């Protein structure tokens, strides 16, 4: 899904840049024409200063497109209720916290209170080594 959102955003940016360029060109052309026309007695200023409708439409469309691309590219929303979030950790494990490209998100830590039961500061490394050696023997 990421490439869709990325290409939408990219295309939107391109359109926006194009609209900006067009607007700039238009105003440059206007001022040039105004300068050349000012020598003439009949000036019709006022009617030509507004931007053509197609540039306006292009700008609005490009902005909407960029918004759409960015929104569709965000990661999945997390539950905001504590019990729902905790339940998701317990029920789905790592699988519930993957981002759009299928990898587990970096800030996923599982149950953050698991530390209170595994207690890494008090780890009994000799016991763990013994248990691991036995596990290897059993394999």
């Amino acid at each position, binding site marked *: 899904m990421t490439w869709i959102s990325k290409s939408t955003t990219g295309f939107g940016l391109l359109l926006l840049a194009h609209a900006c360029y067009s607007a700039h060109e238009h105003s440059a052309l206007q001022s040039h024409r105004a300068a050349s026309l000012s020598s003439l007695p009949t000036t019709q200023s006022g009617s030509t200063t507004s931007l053509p409708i197609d540039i306006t439409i292009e700008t609005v469309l490009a902005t909407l497109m960029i918004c759409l691309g960015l929104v569709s590219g965000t990661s999945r929303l997390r539950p905001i209720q*504590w*019990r*729902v979030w*905790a*339940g*998701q*950790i*317990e*029920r*789905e*494990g*790592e*699988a*519930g916290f993957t981002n759009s490209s299928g*990898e*587990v998100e*970096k800030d*996923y*830590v*599982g*149950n953050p*209170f*698991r*530390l*209170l*039961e*595994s*207690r*890494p*500061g*008090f*780890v*009994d*490394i*000799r*016991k*763990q*080594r013994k*248990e*691991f*050696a036995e*596990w*290897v023997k059993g394999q």
Partner: protein
Amino acid sequence: MSSSLLRPPSHLPPATALHNSQQAPNILNNSPGAVSTSVIQSLLSTSESQELWTTYENLLLSLLRTGDDDSAHLCLARLAKRFGDDNERVMALKGLIKEADANDTATLEIILKEYDQILQDNPTNLPIVKRRVALLRSMGRTPESITALISLLDVSPTDAEAWAELADLYFSQGLYSQAIFALEEVLVLQPNAWNVHARLGEMLLMASKTSDAPRHLAEALKRFSRSIELCDDYLRGYYGLKLTTTQLLSEPQKASKQTEPDELAVPSSATVQKLDEAATEKLAEIVRRHTAGERDWQGYEEAEITAARELLEKASEKTVR
């Protein structure tokens, strides 16, 4: 898969630990050995991520567990190079490696003396204090370890991990009421920890076998209910709830005669019955959906599911009879 290296590895099954250790050469070769601490160079060179050092620390623990000491020393060397030899956490890791290398009690005694030496210079070096407690426990000197831990808690009473360890130490000595008190302290510090609520419930359930059953059972019921309240579909909580309600229903409690104001009364049997039904229903649902392989229900551990299934089968046998 390397995401699991960002979490402390001590609760992982041996197979995962082995897998983590086998990644060691890869990680050690690909990660920068030293990150310069000067500001200008850190702007120019590849940015140093926080995960890198967490990975090193957890990798070190996995390596020690699987007995790959050479790579473990390499990890430690890199951590020491980055944070300095006198960093408290690095000191604790160094002690950990020495403990892992030690073969006999005499060596362990020497390590213990070294810890004491470090603590004489700086009595508030918490990682080393914790190592000392763990080493004493590992050597079988639990009472001394409890004393050391209590003095640690005098210094830093807001350390939830230390309270949890104290609870476990008391529990290993069969001192239920002290263990329950320590776990309640953990809950004061971390009131949302659903697994600690469940743990306290389990401990109360065990304590109810020895003394003062009605009060302990009522309290356990409350704790398990709270753990479920904090966490939807929490298997451990429902399992404990089921055990407690079964106990309460099998031996009908006498109308509570001790109605002290601050005492928790055992709820009426109708309430207990309802809780029992709810727990049974939920456990059955969890077991069914996990076994059916539904994608959103695969986070439970196999052993937990098996235990829940056995409990349900036992309960249904009873009702059939």
